[in-house]
């Protein structure tokens, strides 16, 4: 029996159409718009002005706090303006808009493709450089990685877990990255291990990526302390709490971070970015994005500069199909529906998913028949049906007692509910309100 996490879980149709498609480099667009808030934490502060010329990899916005990240120009050209532009959040966000002119990189960046195994920096330097390179979690949460790498005093980390699960249906960017940049990821892993001062790392990969498991296992033989763990296919295995549970059987307590159980989780893409930052001096300004969907002509994986309009990516995959009803940034379970295809790709964009009309709308909501399916699939052991009702009736105290804050927003409950209840919608509302109440209480 393959390992997996202990509670709940679902297995949606995988639909990995773009699996095995080589990573293509997307042509540089004529204009990019780079939001200053692409990560969890404080938005960065722009350090360029209208009319400035920038090079690829030049810093254009600086981290504005501990939990924040630098942003580097993904292209070379002129800053056209700094203005509010619609982004994936559905609201207008301050963004730096750059008109592209050529492709001139900062000289410090090593553009060679050769593998560099030798880690020269010290742990502290690695963390610092990760921060400078603006690396944030590419697994979706876009949490600034250097923060995670700075283990708080009093806590110890004894294991690094790499998230190569990619449990979201449709998405294949991590998969393809592991196939093509396996060695780099492993070196990146060693860098992270060094930064965290641990001697063990596990790369968790779901069993629907047998080729990646095989490939990585073979490569990992040469690297000390790194093991590959094949995992049973089950959503949301990629959730870090679930992944830790699946790989090493530890449960992160309610409201605590993984470090509580001595683990740090990083996405494989993040690890690759760390490799590039440390060994090649290349900050984070491009990433692999999967473009896919049932009716997409050429689903594929594209190395894309941050700030590229989603439209361009879709063009590269064969254009937008006639019957598209929904464009999702990310996977179908956790991704965000985009209000328009004009929004830019950001550091957190792991995929663009086009849904045909018939799959774009939800079924009619009926009343809860107490079938308990949502309860049985919830990976956190919550009672989604109750949380939704409590939220609708604004009974916040009870919601808190029922641990609404534990919800990882995986959406398994909404996915499974036969009555099509918008469980997660209301649970999010509840999390927001309860979180606010809790904060005001602690004040």
């Amino acid at each position: 029996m393959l390992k997996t996490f202990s509670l709940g879980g679902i297995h949606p149709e995988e639909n990995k159409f773009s699996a095995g498609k080589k990573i293509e480099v997307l042509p540089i667009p004529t204009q990019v718009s780079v939001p200053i808030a692409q990560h969890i934490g404080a938005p960065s502060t722009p350090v360029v002005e209208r009319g400035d010329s920038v090079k690829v990899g030049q810093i254009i916005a600086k981290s504005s706090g501990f939990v924040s990240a630098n942003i580097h120009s993904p292209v070379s050209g002129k800053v056209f303006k700094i203005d509010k532009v619609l982004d994936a959040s559905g609201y207008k966000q301050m963004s730096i808009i750059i008109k592209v002119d050529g492709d001139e990189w900062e000289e410090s960046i090593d553009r060679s493709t050769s593998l560099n195994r030798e880690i020269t920096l010290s742990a502290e330097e690695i963390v610092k450089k990760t921060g400078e390179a603006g690396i944030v979690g590419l697994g979706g949460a876009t949490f600034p990685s250097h923060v995670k790498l700075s283990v708080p005093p009093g806590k110890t980390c004894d294991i690094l877990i790499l998230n190569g699960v990619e449990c979201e249906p449709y998405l294949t960017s991590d998969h393809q990255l592991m196939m093509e940049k396996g060695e780099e990821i492993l070196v990146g892993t060693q860098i992270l291990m060094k930064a965290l001062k641990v001697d063990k790392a596990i790369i968790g990969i779901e069993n629907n990526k047998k080729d990646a498991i095989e490939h990585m296992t073979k490569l990992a033989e040469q690297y000390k302390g790194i093991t590959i763990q094949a995992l049973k296919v089950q959503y949301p295995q990629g959730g870090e709490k679930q992944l830790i549970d699946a790989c090493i059987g530890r449960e992160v307590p309610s409201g605590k971070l993984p470090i509580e159980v001595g683990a740090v989780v990083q996405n494989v893409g993040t690890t690759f970015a760390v490799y590039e930052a440390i060994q090649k001096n290349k900050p984070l300004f491009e990433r692999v994005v999967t473009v896919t969907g049932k009716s997409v002509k050429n689903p594929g994986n594209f190395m894309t500069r941050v700030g590229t309009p989603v439209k361009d990516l879709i063009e590269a995959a064969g254009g937008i199909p006639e019957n598209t009803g929904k464009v999702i940034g990310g996977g179908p379970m956790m991704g965000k529906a985009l209000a328009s295809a004009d929004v830019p790709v950001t550091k957190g964009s792991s995929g663009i998913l086009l849904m045909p009309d018939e799959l774009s709308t939800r079924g009619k909501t009926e009343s809860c028949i107490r079938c308990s399916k949502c309860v049985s699939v919830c990976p956190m052991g919550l009672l989604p049906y109750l949380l939704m009702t409590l939220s609708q009736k604004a009974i916040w105290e009870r919601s808190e007692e029922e641990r609404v804050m534990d919800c990882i927003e995986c959406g398994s409950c909404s996915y499974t509910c036969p009555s099509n209840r918008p469980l997660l919608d209301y649970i999010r509302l509840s999390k927001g309100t309860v979180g606010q109440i809790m904060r005001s209480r602690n004040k």
Partner: protein
Amino acid sequence: MNVVLITIITLSALGALAAIILYFVAQKFKVFEDPRIDQVEEVLPAANCGGCGFPGCRAFAEALVKSDDITNLNCPVGGADTMQAAAKIVGKEVGTAAPMVAVVRCNGSCENRPRTNSYDGAENCTIAATLYGGETGCTYGCLGLGECVDACNFDAMYMNEKTGLPVVIEDNCVACGACVEACPKDIMQLRNIGPKSRRIFVSCVNEDKGGPAKKACSVACIGCGKCEKVCAFDAIVIKNNLAYIDYEKCKLCRKCVTVCPTNAIHEINFPVRKPKPPVEKKLVGKVEEGTVKTPTPKPATELKAESPKPAAKVEKAETSVKKDRVVEKKDDSTPEKKDKPESK
């Protein structure tokens, strides 16, 4: 022994026992509750809506009795009369809070604001608001999912299905503020009812610059500043590309209404020659229309009928021309001088 005698003895003994116990109870439990609390509670409307800031009318009554200074306490539901009555009981001075009413500060009806997306999630404005800016290009305006209507305990709001916007039934609104609290977009606001229920406000909260704002919604405030300039009382300020009329300063001269290029400023209950309070208006709805200086642009689709709960049905009342204190339906109640033709 004589039954009667035994009966008397038995009962008397019991009676004595009860008396003694009671006596001690009385000693121990001297709880004095100010009787005025009850009296005050009597005069309060018993709506228990929390509009006063206290959980329930009784709590408010207690506060009235107990606080030394009650000038800043107010029961919006009962209004001045109630407060006067209560003040008399407790022998204190009440503040003279001007009566308020809720207004909807968005006029982005379906025609005014073309849809660019369609929403398919939980029917709840707050949830929708966390997800996106709205189904239209305006990320500030009303989402139209009616959370404010749900919040209102007084049947004072309904969603106009034609416009997709909420409507306040002025006669029912007690200014409890529940809708204001509920709206995640800050569309709802409590404002002075104003003399004869007349008031002027900017029915827009869009902070985008003129171009995008106008593109997203034909009646958006574009922050052009014309109204600010024309106002003789400094009642209008423009901040973040958005005009705001301070109701305390506004003298209802209506100059701003006429200068606004997008008809974003609404005037309510301004028949030209209205000799009587609004009630009268209903009767003369038609006439009034004629008399309004600036003809009401659209037929009163939503003019609220005075009927207390016209709720769901109202939108059908195309024919009902009575306009009355129904408040602000954006369309009808905007007697802007020129406006777009009756679209609908």
